[in-house]
């Protein structure tokens, strides 16, 4: 259906749409999703802002090169489910990525409109079409290739693992996902809170994979229950490792083992996966602080501090050793945190924690920092200002300063090469590891990164694994 489109010069006059969302004072009392999503008419108008420029820098700005102008055109034409399918050609998780991708650094950053005006709200539209497709039950099973009789094991069910599973099952392979926790989804279920990514969306992605024939084996820790080698012994023809970056870093300063000091992984897992926010209906308890300090400036820190507010904190602080400009969190999350009343202590670093006789944290001594020369990461290095120490009263501290890689699989897989940070070494074109038939991708390869990069790595790995599997099949039964 060809729709007559607005003149290009008029398109520039349309202001970028806003996102309707819960009021800050109301939303800090619940765990419901903050943005409501776009209305149909708003989505169509927003998509019509696209100038259809020939270079389409947005496509190159997307780590998985989604055909953005293509899907925007379908939105303008009112074919929302078609638009969702267009995205899914390269990104299997649009409902999730529309919510959690740092669009302002990717596609929207390079949108030609952003030079003089504001970029097309690509993220909002991605979310809109994916929600439309799901809510209207328009999700169609893709065409499935005939069974190849080959078996693939996917270790870890984060965005990397889910993407590999989806792509390989479509190509006719028998795929089993092994997940250590009792629910699949990785960080999407245990880390990112409900108010930012409703768990039913992750669940529906997993249900969809199950419908396509992917077998989920939850509560199975590879390296403990079976090693990678044993998976091959069990008849798997190829293995993908997508186990994420799940080993929390701590500050390594005095008093860090006091009660009331959590890693963000523990804090968020208690609240999200174990639903401690609903204690005692759910049995897992969580410490609800009144004065809560969250250390760090990434998405994990924002998720933790906003969770603390929702659990009743009177003062919720972000304590970050650099300045706001260096904070790695998505702009929208920082903005939401500010609206909700989070207090930002920038250029501040804790030096020790102070506790009472029962071992509970009561205060945190901090030092003020200033920015020096750029370091390896290209960001200006924070330097402590001597004598600037001060204490902050806190009864809960969440350490959100990143993760290292979990050694369980490398330790139990002879010949699997890792780098000095413990990340699995791969060939970036194929995600192939040093072990024949073993591929890896996502945070276990890159260190803590993003959902879309993990999903993108999954795409690349799936393609290479398919090739590997088909060659293997040829070798086994050439006449088949």
């Amino acid at each position, binding site marked *: 259906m060809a729709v007559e489109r607005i003149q290009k010069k008029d398109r520039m006059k349309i202001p970028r749409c806003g996102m309707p969302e819960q009021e800050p004072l109301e939303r800090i009392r619940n765990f419901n999703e903050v943005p409501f999503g776009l209305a149909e008419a708003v989505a169509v108008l927003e998509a019509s802002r696209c100038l259809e420029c020939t270079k389409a820098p947005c496509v190159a700005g997307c780590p998985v090169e989604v055909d953005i102008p293509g899907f925007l055109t379908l939105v303008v034409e009112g074919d929302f489910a078609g638009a969702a399918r267009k995205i899914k050609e390269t990104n299997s998780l649009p409902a999730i990525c529309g919510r959690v991708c740092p669009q302002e650094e990717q596609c929207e950053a390079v949108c030609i409109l952003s030079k003089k005006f504001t970029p097309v709200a690509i993220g909002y539209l991605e979310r809109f079409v994916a929600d439309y497709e799901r809510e209207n039950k328009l999700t169609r099973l893709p065409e499935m290739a005939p069974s190849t009789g080959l078996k693939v094991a996917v270790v870890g069910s984060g965005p990397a693992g889910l993407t590999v599973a989806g792509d390989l099952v479509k190509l006719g392979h028998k795929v089993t996902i092994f997940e250590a926790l*009792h629910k699949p989804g990785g960080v999407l279920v245990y880390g990112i809170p409900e108010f930012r990514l409703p768990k039913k969306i992750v669940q529906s992605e997993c249900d969809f994979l199950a419908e396509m024939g992917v077998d989920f084996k939850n509560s199975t*820790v590879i390296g403990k*229950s079976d090693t990678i080698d044993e998976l091959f012994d069990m008849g798997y023809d190829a293995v993908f490792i997508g186990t994420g970056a799940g080993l*929390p870093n701590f500050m390594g300063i005095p008093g860090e083992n006091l009660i009331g000091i959590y*890693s963000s*992984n523990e804090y968020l*897992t208690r609240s999200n996966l*174990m639903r401690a926010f609903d204690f*005692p209906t759910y049995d897992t308890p969580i410490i609800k602080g009144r004065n809560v300090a969250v250390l760090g400036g990434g998405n994990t820190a924002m998720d933790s501090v906003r969770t603390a507010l929702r659990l009743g904190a009177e003062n919720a602080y972000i304590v970050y050793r650099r300045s706001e400009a260096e904070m790695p969190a998505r702009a929208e999350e920082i903005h939401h945190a500010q609206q909700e009343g989070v207090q930002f202590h920038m250029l501040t670093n804790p030096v020790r924690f102070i506790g009472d006789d029962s071992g509970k944290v009561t205060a945190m001594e901090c030092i003020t920092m200033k920015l020096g020369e750029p370091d390896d990461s290209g960001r200006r290095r924070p330097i402590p200002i001597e004598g600037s120490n001060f204490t902050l009263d806190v009864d809960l501290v969440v350490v959100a300063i990143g993760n290292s890689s979990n050694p369980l699989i490398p330790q139990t897989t002879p010949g699997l090469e890792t780098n000095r940070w413990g990340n699995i070494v791969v060939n970036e074109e194929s995600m192939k590891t040093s072990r024949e038939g073993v591929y890896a991708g996502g945070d276990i390869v890159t260190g803590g990164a993003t959902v879309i990069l993990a999903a993108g790595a999954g795409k690349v790995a799936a393609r290479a694994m398919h090739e590997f599997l088909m060659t293997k099949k040829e070798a086994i039964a050439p006449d088949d």
Partner: protein
Amino acid sequence: MPKVIDNIQIGPQNWKMRVYVPKLVAKASPGQFVIVRVNEEGERVPMSIAGLDRENGLLTIIYQVVGKTSALMTTVEADGEILDCVGPLGLATHVDNWGTAILVGGGIGIAPIYPIAQAWKEAGNRVITIIGARSKNILFYEDEHKAAADDLHVCTDDGSYGHHGFVSDVLKKILDSDEKVGMIMAIGPVPMMRVVANLTRPYDVPTWVSLNPLMVDGTGMCGGCRVAVGDTTKFACVDGPDFDGHQVDFDLLTKRLNAYKEQEQDAFHRFLESPSCKLSEAVKNTG
């Protein structure tokens, strides 16, 4: 979902559950643990391995009713199911031939030292086992330990059975005797493990303890299980649960174990008083 073969009361507060998890049992070694979830709202609770019947694929866990989750576990009937049982987790207990080796089990810790005794015996050790409880009616596994050990000493705090006194009294006697002891391992309540570690320090006998901090995932992801050992912080679920008792900060462990005491007691009492609570009187009385 893992099938429960039987689930029986073996003491005023203690229950014994056998779960059919053949794959896990085939892989598990003494000293490791599993994490169990009973129902959708339930916690993930770590449980020591208290027996491995490899022939029949059965895992034994022995648990004490101390709160809502463990109380709920008592309601699972024979031939029933639990939601999940993940494992084996953690590192296995060290097995070697040290000549003579002593195992000390207190309270619920009497359970996990049983499979360790079997493994140490098989490795050629002369195994001396000391088990203790407050009173006779709390003791269990006496026959099992008798069969596994070369020498079994049973103690009760109140003198209602066996040696009147603490496991540490018996241990001290052995250390003061001619017996040349190459290894000691103690599992039980934190105060008991601390006493044993303090006692053996001057004798210079390696003394290992199995720590039971609060856990969530059990895979090294959350750090909730951190314990201080010497100058370093360890994650008990992946670096342990066994550690050198002479290095462990028991004080910290005790405090961290109490982190949620009020919330947990509150939840337990609410649960006991709720009209839907179907716990047997036997369990309610423990609350």
